[in-house]
Each structure stands twice: as structure tokens, then as C-alpha cells.
């Protein structure tokens, strides 16, 4: 019997890949790119944020810098219904959480590496990365490109301006980066702006960064970039480039540029439209799914059929008609508003596939409510709407209105799980990775493929 995964973002892809590795036949249904494709090039598990009540850089009492592992422990201690608590339990030892993340990151790295993307980092240190505006991100795990841009012990930071590239102004970014270093009491070092002149033919005016990224994988374009950057290298200097250094060929591009400059070369992090980092991750996930023999359907799941307590099939609407996918287990990883897992229909919030009960960030029932009633006018305040999602039992089975699992063999993963606001508590893709794996292990068990791992 096969598993059907609904949703092709990081959570769904991880679940599908994990299931495939466990020997299950898997079919993944994907309506289109979602929040993963809009991500920043980092994989935040327990990343630091300057917002009040988010995960801090330093211990609020003792003042010492926190490791990501300590921030992960903080999520556990804080209570609430963050999905991590389902992974580890509220009293889990820090070491167990760290081990789980390490294992999951290694698995993801194994899946993405053949497609050209690596997962770098652990929860031991905060990786300080600069974004395209010069703000710092206290990340933990990051993907190729962003990862190489870790400030580390570079004695000089140089933001490289590619002549004519839209949306990347190096001077304001450099000023901001210097201010960020000071605000965080990180080692001060010169932040410079260096200009690299690319042949105009490379930069069609107004073209999106993704197009340039694709061009830079072509040998002549890479050669042009190499020659433009070669004079910019210097000992101890970190060259930070806009996130355009190739799509899935980024590893080669980075190696070529490091070799040409003798300096470390990395990308500034950013979100679309100024960065193709999320598109890279999306493409690498699709390549991994192909390689692992996961069947894929580009379409929209519209219903789940059941027999007693079990889901038996998923109906998919796609070009050319409807298809019934028989399912021994289902993983629901449809995301929130961007992914389409939660919609507002006729002025009422609803979980889009099954009409599952939703709970907002304040723990109140949210389905059936107009969205605007769940927000405050103060942008910076916690917004219950944006922590809305389904509730599950310890096995990640979404709960029906009566508090019991809606199905014996349907599991939820990723942002569809409520209880956290990824814009405030920077754990978004971390939740996708960990809950995707866990949903897979539960689904495998439901398929009779051995014991669940946790």
C-alpha cells in the first residue's frame, strides 16, 4: 500500500523522501511552489530574532550568548503548543533534541547533495549571515551559498556590487552591516563595497536575479564573473555577493570564484524576488524526489475518502481530470496561507482539504472565524492569525472537533501545524524538517513498515 503526501514544500518532500527510503511506495501531490520556494537560504531550527518574545541572541538573565541548542531548549521550556514539543516532549533533554536535528540535517544533506545543495551547520554555534539589505541573521543551519557567507573570523567584509543588477544596493547594505556588527557586539571589522563590472550582455536590464543565476552556470558567463572578481580577493577578506551564484550549479560557481580570488566567497541571504535561494531549495527537493522514485502529481488534492477511521484514498484534480490515489497512509503538508493549507472561504477560515479544526496562536478555535478578527492593528504584536494551524496528537495526527484523531492513518507536518509564528519565532523550516521526518515514521508504521522511530 502506498503513502500519499499532499504538499511539496520542505515538510512534504522530507516526508516523501523518508518514506521512500523506508521502502514505501510514495506519491507526492503538489499544487505549486509554496513557502519553501519563498525561503531565504537558511534552515532555521531555533534561530535568533530581535523581536520581543522571540528567541533571543543572549540569555535574558545572564547575558551570555546562547547557542542554537540552548534556544531549542528554550522553545521546550516556554510551553505553548510549538510543534517541537511533539517531537521531544516538554521535558526532553537538550541533547536529545540536538541529536534529532543532527540526524535530520544529515538525512536532508544526503538527499540534496546529489542535486548540488548542501546543508551546513549544527546547533553548536550561531552562524551570522548578512542579508541583502545588510541586516544580520542569527541562523543555525544554512544551505550552500548562504552558508559560505558566514562572517566567522573574516578580518574584512566586502559587499560586492554587481554592476547593473536590480535590487541590490551595496552601499546601504554595507552601512547597515557595520551597524549590525556594533549592535550585536560582534568583532568590529571593516565593511567595504567593491564593484565588479560584468559584461552588459550578462545583465539584461530589469531581469530577475534568478535569470542571472541561471546564466552564471554557463561556462562563458562564469568566466566573465571570475575575471571580474579575481582582482577583488585579499587575505582574510570575505566577499559577499548578491544571491545569484547559480542555481543548482552553485557549488561549482563558488569553488571557481574562491579559486580565482583566493578569498572566501559567499552569498548574501535574501528572499524572492531579490534571491533565488528558495527556488534553489525547491528545485533540489524535486530532483531528490525524482531520484528516489517518488511519484509526483502536479495537481490539487480536493478530498480524502475514508473507510471507518482510516483514510483510503486522496482525490486529485489535475490537468486532464480527476485521479484517485489509493493510500495506506496520508501525510498532510499543505502549509498555511502561502501554501494553501489554510484558506478563507466566504469570509471564514478553513483548513482547505478536510475542514479540520484550526486553532489560533492564542489557542482559540479559529476555523469559521473571519481572518481579520484574529489580528491586532499593531504590526509588531503577536498576531494569533499567523500562528494558526491544526492540532495533533503526539503522533502528529490532526485532531477532529471531538479531540480525537480525525483519521488513524493521516499525519500532518510543516507549517500547517499551528502554535508558532515563523515570522516571529524563527523555526519555520526546522519545523518542516523535523515534523516531515516524524510524520514519515508514523506513516511508515501505519503502512506496516516496522516500528516508528520515536
Amino acid at each position: 500500500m502506498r503513502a500519499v503526501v499532499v504538499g511539496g514544500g520542505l515538510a512534504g518532500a522530507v516526508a516523501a523522501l523518508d518514506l521512500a527510503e523506508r521502502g514505501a511506495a510514495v506519491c507526492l501531490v503538489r499544487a505549486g511552489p509554496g513557502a519553501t520556494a519563498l525561503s531565504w537560504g537558511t534552515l532555521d531550527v531555533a534561530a535568533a530574532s530581535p523581536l520581543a518574545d522571540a528567541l533571543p541572541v543572549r540569555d535574558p538573565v545572564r547575558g551570555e550568548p546562547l547557542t542554537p541548542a540552548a534556544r531549542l531548549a528554550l522553545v521546550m521550556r516556554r510551553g505553548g503548543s510549538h510543534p517541537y514539543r511533539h517531537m521531544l516532549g516538554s521535558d526532553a533533554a537538550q541533547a536529545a533534541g540536538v541529536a534529532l536535528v543532527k540526524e535530520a540535517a544529515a538525512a536532508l544533506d544526503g538527499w540534496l547533495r546529489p542535486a548540488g545543495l548542501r546543508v551546513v551547520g549544527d546547533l553548536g554555534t550561531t552562524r551570522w549571515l548578512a542579508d541583502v539589505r545588510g541586516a544580520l541573521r542569527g541562523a543555525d543551519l544554512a544551505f550552500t551559498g548562504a552558508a559560505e557567507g558566514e562572517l566567522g573570523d573574516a578580518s574584512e567584509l566586502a559587499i560586492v556590487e554587481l554592476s547593473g543588477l536590480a535590487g541590490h544596493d551595496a552601499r546601504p547594505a554595507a552601512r547597515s552591516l557595520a551597524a549590525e556588527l556594533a549592535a550585536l557586539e560582534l568583532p568590529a571589522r571593516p565593511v567595504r563595497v567593491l564593484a565588479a563590472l560584468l559584461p552588459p550582455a550578462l545583465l539584461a536590464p530589469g531581469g530577475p536575479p534568478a535569470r542571472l543565476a541561471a546564466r552564471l552556470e554557463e561556462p562563458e558567463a562564469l568566466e566573465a564573473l571570475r575575471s571580474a572578481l579575481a582582482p577583488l580577493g585579499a587575505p582574510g577578506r570575505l566577499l559577499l555577493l548578491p544571491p545569484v551564484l547559480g542555481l543548482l550549479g552553485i557549488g561549482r560557481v563558488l569553488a571557481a570564484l574562491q579559486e580565482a580570488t583566493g578569498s572566501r566567497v559567499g552569498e548574501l541571504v535574501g528572499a524572492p524576488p531579490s534571491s533565488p535561494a528558495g527556488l534553489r531549495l525547491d528545485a533540489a527537493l524535486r530532483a531528490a524526489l525524482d531520484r528516489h522514485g517518488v511519484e509526483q502529481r502536479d495537481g490539487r488534492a480536493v478530498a480524502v475518502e475514508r473507510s471507518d477511521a482510516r483514510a483510503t484514498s486522496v482525490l486529485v484534480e489535475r490537468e486532464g481530470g480527476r485521479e484517485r490515489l489509493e493510500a495506506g497512509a496520508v501525510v498532510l503538508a499543505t502549509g498555511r496561507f502561502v501554501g494553501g493549507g489554510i484558506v478563507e472561504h466566504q469570509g471564514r477560515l478553513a483548513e482547505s482539504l478536510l475542514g479540520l479544526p484550526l486553532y489560533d496562536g492564542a489557542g482559540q478555535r479559529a476555523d469559521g472565524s473571519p481572518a481579520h478578527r484574529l489580528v491586532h492593528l499593531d504590526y509588531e504584536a503577536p498576531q494569533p492569525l499567523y500562528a494558526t494551524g491544526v492540532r495533533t496528537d503526539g503522533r502528529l495526527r490532526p485532531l477532529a472537533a471531538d479531540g480525537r484523531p480525525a483519521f488513524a492513518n493521516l499525519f500532518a507536518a510543516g507549517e500547517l501545524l499551528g502554535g508558532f509564528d515563523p515570522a516571529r519565532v524563527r523555526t519555520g523550516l526546522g519545523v518542516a524538517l523535523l515534523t516531515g521526518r516524524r510524520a514519515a515514521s508514523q506513516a511508515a508504521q501505519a503502512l506496516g513498515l516496522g516500528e516508528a522511530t520515536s
Partner: protein
Amino acid sequence: MSRVLPVQVLVVGGGINGTGIARDLALRGVRTALVEKREFGSGTTWASSGMIHGGLRYLQKDPEVTYHSCLDSGHIQRIAAHLIFRIPFLMPVFPEDSIGPELVEVALEMYDRYQPLKNGRPHTRLSREQALRLEPALSTRLECAFTLDEWGVDAARLCTANALDAAEHGAHVLTHHEAVELLRTADGRVCGARIRDRIRGEELRIEADLVMNAAGPWAPAVARLAGVEVRLRPGKGIHLVFERRVTNLAVYARGVDGRDMFTFPHEHNSMAGTTDDDYYGDLDRIDATEDEVSYVLEAMERSIPGIRRHRIIHTMAAVRPTLYGFGQNEGELSRDYVVIDHGERDAAPGLFTIVGGKLAAYRLMAEDATDRLCAALGVREPCRTAETPLPGADAAVDVAALARRFRTPLAAVLRLAFRHGSRTPRVLAPHDPAPAAGARPAPRVVCACEPVLDAELRHVTAHEGVRTLGDCALRVRLGVGGCQGAACAGAAAGLLAEGLGWSAEQTTAEVARFAAERWRAVAPALGGRQLAAMQVHRAVHLGARGFARGQEPS
């Protein structure tokens, strides 16, 4: 010692009345200063329907208002030719309407007599089938429909154009400057004001022979600085703004209480509104409410049944400085205006107040007010604002040729020319591709929703006195499209920072303030597909917030 600036007239308030009066004064050679505590038009003007219509609504009770609106609408079309656009209206008649087609036709025939004043076409009567063919979104329940002809304008830009022209004729024009105290001579004459720069915190004294209080809803507060009372009955109005055009024509709708409203194309959005409710709240924090949003949608639904399927990207809310009246409903209050000489009325000589009125007749009101001021000053120059084009309105531009020459998308140049008219080449000049000019790079699109070019942001920073990122939302429509500044606020702030010398912390704070302002406008009507857009907005503006914080938003 704070700086002292001597002038003949100090105008307080940079909405359409204040900027209109400052321009008129400056054109008559009067030494003038204008202070606006936020951005031009940010109080009432920007949130208006942006129509220089003739005021069909007032025909029955205030035919004077209709006449003056139509007359002045004709003038504005000439002096702001680049800023206006024709809005054909469709008025459906439903079986349950108390006023049937015959009566509507009578009213429109009367209105037709005013149409030539504003270059409008006479009404037509359409059968049900004709109306549905013209506007398929209409409810099929209609009996018949009428067309009438009105004009729209970028109201915030109209303020800017007036202010720019005032400045170019010698006026001192200061935004984000607030009058905190009125100066009095020993014998009680109002002789200027102490002005605080709300951004830098610095103060200056503007000494003036006369002070014109044109602060709109804040006029009572300014009058209180001189210990005199100006009584208004502020009427709050909201608009819903849709991501694109819901209908091609403006469509009349009727609220549950019988109030006339409409959905109308505005720039490349549609707007729906407006409400009119007594307002007692904080004038500096006016937000749309759930009730108002529902009321407008309910009204619209009767004419356009599918309206709720369309994506509302934000709301606009403001109050009208309506003249006080007792015992009337909001909609029955007069739209007339008054110019008060507080020397005659209150023993506060030197102070004048203008309140009330309509956007469509702003120029005429400014002329009247300026006549009064000039009479008091003994200035005999005649008014020239009805004939003198506003900046950019003196000639048409060849948009296609500019787009080719500056290698810029046509859509972007069209929008640029809409705001800057004949000055468009000036805005683009720093990007001149000619080898003699150094073959500079092509302009880049910063805000794709509008679109806004980097060239325009640099231009308004260097030559139009833009001081905050929020100013740009009104000045050039930055970040007021579907993504509400998720994609553009950071990049735009970087450009402004260069021009204005902001520190990194100031830049971060500006972006944070901008994001928070947009959120306040979005939240009351947040729903549907805008939920995903705001998820991205939050990921960008909260999820990527840096650690170096500037001043907290004030």
C-alpha cells in the same frame, strides 16, 4: 535661539486646501510659508475618492455646491491635465429602488446642464441588456441603467503639485513640521507660529502678518492654539482598495441606510466607498473598522454580486472636516465651506480658518480664501490659478519615445508621466544613455506593483522634499499595491538613505515604520488571498528584521 523666518502669510496644513492656498498666494507674489505636520495630503485628501466630480449628490440640497464643483472641475482639468482621468459611471436601477428610472432621468437631465462646465458628456439611458454587456459584473436583477461622466485625480499628487508650484514661486514649504504654538503680539494679534520639525526635533519661528489655518480636521486644534473655537462635525469615511480593477466603469451602489456609494476604477486599482459617520476618536490614528468594511461590501454586493471574491489589499480611512450642524444625519450635512476671519469673529486678528468643502472645488475655495487674505494684506494681484498650469501640466510627453530612449518598461514610464507630466524627461535625465552623458545604466523598477523606478525615488528625494519612506506611499504610490511593500520597502529605503543621509539604524526604523503603517491599513479588511501576501510581508519585515534598531516609530 531657534531660526526665524519672516513671511507675509503662514499657511498651516498641507492638504488640498493648504497647498491650494499657498500656491495662490505665491502666484500673487505674497511671501508665504506652508507647514504640514506629516506629508502633503496625508490627512483627508489622500483618503478621499480622488474625484473631482460635480457632486450629483448635492444637486437636490446644495445646488451651489454642484455648480461650483462642476465649474472648478473644468478648471482643474486644464491646470492638472496629466493628473486626471475620465471615470464613466454606471447607475443601475433595481426593482426595489424607491426612485424609479423616470425620476433618476429627471435628476440626470438637470445634471447634464452642468456637464459642459467640466467637459463631461450628457447621460445616457441603457437597457438591462446594454448595461450587462457593458459591465458583465453587474447584478442581473437590474431594470435599466444610466451613465454619467465624472473625473478622477491622484489627489495626493495634486497636493504635491500645488505645493511644488508654491515653492517654485518662492514659498517656503515644510513637511513634517507642526505648528505647536501661535505667536501673539502684545495687543493680541496672531503674528506667526512656533514650528517643530517632527523628524529632527528642531524648532523655528515663522513670523507672519497673517496665519491661515487650513488644517482640515485638525483646524479646531490649531484654532485652540489661539484660544478660539472652530466647530466641526468630523465625518469619518473609509474606502476599500482592490488589487486590480473590479469593474471597467464606476458603479453606483446603495447602502442599507440608502446612502449612495460606488465602486470605481482609480489608478490601476478599484476602490469602493465611502462611508460617512460622526467621528469622535483620535485624529492621528484613524483606522477602518469591521463594521464599516462590512457595510461597504454589503452595499456593493447589491450592484456587483461577485465583489467579495475580489482581493482587498488595503483600506483608507480619514475624516472630512465637515461644518458643524445639529439634528441632521451625517450625509445631510452641508458640503459647503467657510472662511473665518478670527479678527472679526473672535478678537484674534491675524488668524483665518478655512474648513469644509470638497476636493472638486478646492481651487475655487483657495481663491476665495486667498482673496480674503490679500484684502487684509492690501495685495491687489488677481488670482491666476484657474489658467496657470500646475508643474508638469504645461505640455504632453511622448511616453513611448521616452521608454525607448531610456530603455525602460513602457508601463513604468506611463505611470511616471502620469505623476510628472512634462517633467518626466527631467526625472529620467540622470539615466541618459547617450555616450556624451556617460552612458548611465537604465532605470530600475523598485516597486513592481505600481511600478516605481529608482529614478523617480531619487528625483522626489532630491527635488520634491520627500523626508520619509511613508511619504513615498502618497507621493509616488510606493508599496501600496498587492504586496504592500514586502518586495520594495527595503530597497526603496536604501535609495532614500543615500539621498537623505540616513544612518543604518534610521533606515531600519523607517522600514519598520512603513511596514507597520501598511499593516494598519490592511488589517481591518484582511482576508482571502491577501492573507498569503501578508504572510510574506511578515516573513520579510519581521522574519528578517535586523538587530540595530533606530528610534521607535513615533
